């Protein structure tokens, strides 16, 4: 049974979070901790790469809602990218593209911070 793993890398003042596995009510606290760490470090520009994420529930979606305002209030943002069709459908069905920028490719998401 797969788990949830998260990897963080930096490109200048942009942090990239790579999600792997599933993001549900059990694992979403890991993503919360990652965002808390970024905020404590003053890193408010975040790209989240979903390429290896196989599942997301409302608990996972809630994490993004919890931190988007803080990032934007500090001249940053949370940009999402590399979603599979399955994952994108969940975001899209609830209307998340209204609030979040979602890109096919990571490089495009990074460029949008320039």
């Amino acid at each position, binding site marked *: *049974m797969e788990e949830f793993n998260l990897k963080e890398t930096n490109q200048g003042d942009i942090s990239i979070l790579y999600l792997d596995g599933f993001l549900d009510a059990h694992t979403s606290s890991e993503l919360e901790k990652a965002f808390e760490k970024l905020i404590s470090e003053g890193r408010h520009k975040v790209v989240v790469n979903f390429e290896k994420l196989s599942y997301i529930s409302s608990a996972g979606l809630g994490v993004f809602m919890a931190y988007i305002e803080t990032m934007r209030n500090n001249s940053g943002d949370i940009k999402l990218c590399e979603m599979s069709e399955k994952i994108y459908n969940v975001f899209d069905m609830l209307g998340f593209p209204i609030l979040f920028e979602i890109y096919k490719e990571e490089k495009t998401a990074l460029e949008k911070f320039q």
Partner: protein
Amino acid sequence: MNDQNKIVITSSTKNLALVRDFIEERAKKTKADANTVNQIVMSVDEVCSNVIKYSHRFNDQFKIKIEVFHLKKQFKVRITYKGLEFDPNNVENPDMEEYFAKCKVGGLGIPMMKKFMDKIEYHCSSPDINFLTLTKNLE
């Protein structure tokens, strides 16, 4: 009742993956498309997550029973658990424009299952046993 179509878990979020695998395996047997299978899996996940968090307050002394029924053109999942009465049909869907404008957090589980499933039936038997049945119509 064929026990292959039933599982009982302790009320803990660590068991959500187990529930999803159980539902996915049985939903796939109906030959439903991947999107339909995922919608069923997600809906059951949302129900169980809510039960664990709100009905049982993360107390893993409680249990949740999940049963699946594959009828001719329907796939049903019945979730049985102890707790206070709560009918998700009585919860109004949030206005998503307002939701995003105010950056609200939480409360998306029930709208999700309402969107994904064709019917949500709830009843409570005394003293405090709840039955929530999710139905997905199959093509």
